């Protein structure tokens, strides 16, 4: 796609060091650019210089791994300037509500000096040539595209300026850009739209361009509303099932009574085929698919099916068995408790559904010689490859469109809906519009695995000497391309030995932010054939959440206030500033009525850190409510503070839900919960009345932020609950009765 004419951009400093980049013109009638790396990557590990004994995630976190894996293809990000003066950017990531299209549009607008309203960001189709650079996860989008997007836009601006210089016969250095136009010293202006054709054809071999110094940013870093907000509030936003794809009819699947069960026989196919609106029926690996004129009729028909099922993969398992296995799997501590003062604690966390509001869904049109898929996909390339193999077509005959979708929280790392839709479309030889019912989404969808935690800290003379955390978890399915990424970057990883992918992910995402002497955190997984997936903050919500509870208990044993204790043991002043912010703004230590209490938590991941202070009303320990929250976050360089606040708010609500009431009970091979009336994700009445969020000023490169908010809030809420009630929570969610009649299997 390159052109012999090229220009260079430079970026100095930052997490991945000084590099030079070459920008290529893409053959097109209007200015279309791509940017590449000239210099081989240096591992980010080389820049680690942390005092003390760093943990692997201090040296190189999962985000660094994703950036490293994606760097060889980072240049394949393309930007076009159209004749009507708009900039169109194709983002190879999935927008699921996290606001990345807005943040990327801001970066483009900033660098081009173009009004934000003139920037369009479209989600790219699955592009296998991007190799490992089309995975949306690990809070990594902004971290990975911040440099490449700015460099590409800077090169575009330089070309537009050069084109104006040619047109006016003026040196480019005398020209400035403003509001989507190039401006000459005499006041003449030329819009980008009027220059783009010329800019696309000029030979400019010596052109160099640098992104703006960050000190000159006027849009980036300022609170900005979402570019898609209007479509969302008017109902104009088109999610996958709102698309009108020719011939694609509503389709649903009758699923087995236990996870991974299979169809033995369909006993009333004729009757069901004769039901109103029913168009077709097919047995697929996951169940029995029914197509009808409307989803209502497909739902009725699937419910009317009489199917004999083969068993599933975990039919005999219930929560008690799983918990027993987890307890047995937790690795032993190294330090005996006999000779030292110590704190021991064990914690259990239930399975948690991702439960995005838009259930699993996809549109698939599979033909003899080609296929087209539409779905919300965070691992689009692996989805495309897997679907092509499953339906027996070459990869290049399968087009996969990534649709903006209604939430993910990790769920859409997996493409089971898209794969199933393709299988049904092939079996029926018709285009299908597949929707999962809510009940199926909760029972046969994915979940955060249950975990068990053992923590031991020893201390003496005001110092913490050792800190050990043993995590046993039901296996988290990471087979969405992460394995390939870890293999490709293996030589650079800060871990050694024959670790599993999961252990590598654990060690590159979880770290103790405190100077606690000799620290070891180890993961041991129990492989169960269930549908699991990373859930917002992966291992950290539970692992770090439990640790923040233990920190409070350790502080108490050592006679310290929870905030003062954390201040003493946090590793950096940057971390302390975040903690101090919530303590001051939240009026830490203020008198509270009986049954109310404050609680605090801290978390550091992906080059960002956050503290959360909550106040809980637990006068009725069975009906606690977080009534107030103060959050501070330092994400290095905020692109859109308003979007960051939204992410932190989401993390807080996730923490309220999963800490207090929301989880899945596994009963003989199936979750009992089947809707939001049973899986108690927070509602308005569970949400605090007063939340204040403080984004710390920019001071470096962007860190990760999408998952940052959960773990600190888990700790803060549990700690507040403990202080308010005197009950030390050990099992989460805290209130987890089966307070409903389960739906039939």
């Amino acid at each position, binding site marked *: 796609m390159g052109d012999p004419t090229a220009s260079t951009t430079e970026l100095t400093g930052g997490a991945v060091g000084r590099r030079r980049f070459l920008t290529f013109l893409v053959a097109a009638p209007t200015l279309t650019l791509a940017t590449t790396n000239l210099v081989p990557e240096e591992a980010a590990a080389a820049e680690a210089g942390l005092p003390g004994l760093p943990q692997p995630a201090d040296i190189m976190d999962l985000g660094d791994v994703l950036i490293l894996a994606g760097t060889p293809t980072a240049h394949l990000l393309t930007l076009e300037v159209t004749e009507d003066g708009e900039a169109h950017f194709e983002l190879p990531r999935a927008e*699921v*509500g*996290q*606001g990345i299209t807005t943040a990327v549009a801001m970066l483009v607008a900033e660098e081009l000096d173009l009004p934000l309203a003139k920037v369009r960001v479209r989600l790219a189709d699955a592009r296998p040539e991007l190799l490992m650079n089309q995975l949306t996860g690990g809070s990594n989008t902004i971290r990975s595209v911040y440099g490449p997007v700015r460099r590409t836009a800077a090169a575009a601006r330089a070309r537009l300026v050069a084109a104006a210089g040619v047109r006016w016969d003026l040196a480019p250095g005398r020209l400035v850009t403003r509001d989507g136009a190039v401006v000459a010293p005499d006041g003449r202006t030329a819009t980008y739209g009027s220059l783009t054709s010329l800019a696309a054809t000029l030979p400019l071999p010596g052109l160099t361009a640098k992104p703006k110094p960050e000190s000159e940013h006027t849009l980036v870093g300022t609170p900005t*509303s*979402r570019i*898609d*907000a209007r*479509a*969302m*509030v*008017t*109902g*104009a*936003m*088109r*999610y996958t*099932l*709102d698309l*009108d794809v020719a011939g694609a009819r509503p389709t649903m699947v009758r699923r087995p009574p236990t996870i991974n069960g299979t169809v033995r026989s369909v006993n009333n196919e004729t009757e069901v085929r004769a039901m*109103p609106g029913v168009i077709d029926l097919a047995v697929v690996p996951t169940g029995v698919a029914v197509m009808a*004129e*409307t*989803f*209502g*009729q497909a*739902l009725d028909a699937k419910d009317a099916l009489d199917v004999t099922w083969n068993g599933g993969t975990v039919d005999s398992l219930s929560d008690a068995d799983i918990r027993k296995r987890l307890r047995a799997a937790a690795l032993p501590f190294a330090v005996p408790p006999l000779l030292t003062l110590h704190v021991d604690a064990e914690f259990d966390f239930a399975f948690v559904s991702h*439960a*995005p*509001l*838009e*259930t699993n869904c996809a549109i698939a049109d599979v033909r003899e010689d080609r296929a087209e898929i539409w779905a919300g996909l965070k691992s689009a390339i692996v989805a495309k490859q897997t679907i092509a193999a499953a339906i027996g077509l070459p990869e290049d005959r399968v087009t996969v469109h990534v649709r903006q*979708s*209604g*939430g*993910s*929280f990790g769920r859409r790392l997996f493409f089971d809906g898209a794969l199933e839709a393709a299988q049904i479309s092939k079996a029926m030889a018709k285009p299908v519009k597949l*929707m999962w019912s*809510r009940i199926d989404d909760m029972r046969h969808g994915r979940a955060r695995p249950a975990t068990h935690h053992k923590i031991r800290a020893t201390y003496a003379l005001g110092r913490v000497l050792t800190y050990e955390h043993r995590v046993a978890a039901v296996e988290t399915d990471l087979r969405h391309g992460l394995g390939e990424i870890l293999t490709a970057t293996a030589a650079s990883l800060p871990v050694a030995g024959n670790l599993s992918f999961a252990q590598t992910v654990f060690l590159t995402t979880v770290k103790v932010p405190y100077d606690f002497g000799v620290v070891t955190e180890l993961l041991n997984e129990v492989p169960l054939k269930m549908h699991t997936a990373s859930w917002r903050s992966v291992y950290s919500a539970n692992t770090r959440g439990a640790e923040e509870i233990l920190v409070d208990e350790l502080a108490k044993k050592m006679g310290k206030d929870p905030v003062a204790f954390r201040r003493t043991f946090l590793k950096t002043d940057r971390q302390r500033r975040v903690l101090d912010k919530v303590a001051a703004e939240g009026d830490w230590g203020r008198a509270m009525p009986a049954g109310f209490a404050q609680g605090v938590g801290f978390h550091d991941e992906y080059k960002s850190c956050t503290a959360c202070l909550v106040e809980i009303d637990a006068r009725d320990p069975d009906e606690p409510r977080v009534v107030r929250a103060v959050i501070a976050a330092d994400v290095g360089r905020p692109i859109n503070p*308003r979007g960051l606040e*939204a992410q932190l*708010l*989401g*993390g*807080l*609500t*996730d923490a*309220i839900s999963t800490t207090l009431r929301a989880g899945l009970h596994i009963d003989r091979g199936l979750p009992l919960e089947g*809707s*939001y*009336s049973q899986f108690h*994700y*927070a*509602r*308005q*009445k569970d*949400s*605090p*009345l007063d*939340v204040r969020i403080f984004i710390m000023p920019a001071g470096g490169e962007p860190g990760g932020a999408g998952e940052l908010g959960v773990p600190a809030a888990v700790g803060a809420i549990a700690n507040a609950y403990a202080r308010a009630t005197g009950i030390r929570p050990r099992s989460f969610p805290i209130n987890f009765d089966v307070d409903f009649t389960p739906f039939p299997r």
Partner: protein
Amino acid sequence: MPTYTFAVNGRTVTVDAPADMPLLWVLRDRLGVTGPKYGCGIDVCKACTSHLDGEAINPCVVAVSEAAGREVTTIEGLADGDVLHPVQEAWLEQDVAQCGYCQPGQIMAAVALLRKTANPTDAEIDAIQNVCRCGTYVRIREAIKRAAAKM
């Protein structure tokens, strides 16, 4: 099959449908009105919240026959052309939406509440059951109060 005539967002429509077919599927699959979303099908998540003669309903559990001769308003019918409803404006000002999937229902629930109560209390806002899985509740509350102040 029986025929039902009713208004959707000011437009009169006539559909052939079984009497008990949920209005949600008539709207989405027959009429192409996709603003109301499926989230549970059993009146729990409230993502499909719309109005029937100005009152909040959940079309996933309202039979099409109940709509006959009446006025259905979905999120698409809330604005007056390009002029947004004050609640929609407030939603933009507070930048409420994240994934956006529940927001048509949230907005329609808020509009219905404000029709009944010009200045809702926190307890009245707490009574809104609509699920927002992204956890935007704090901004929803602020937006409702802002809209109440405007109206």
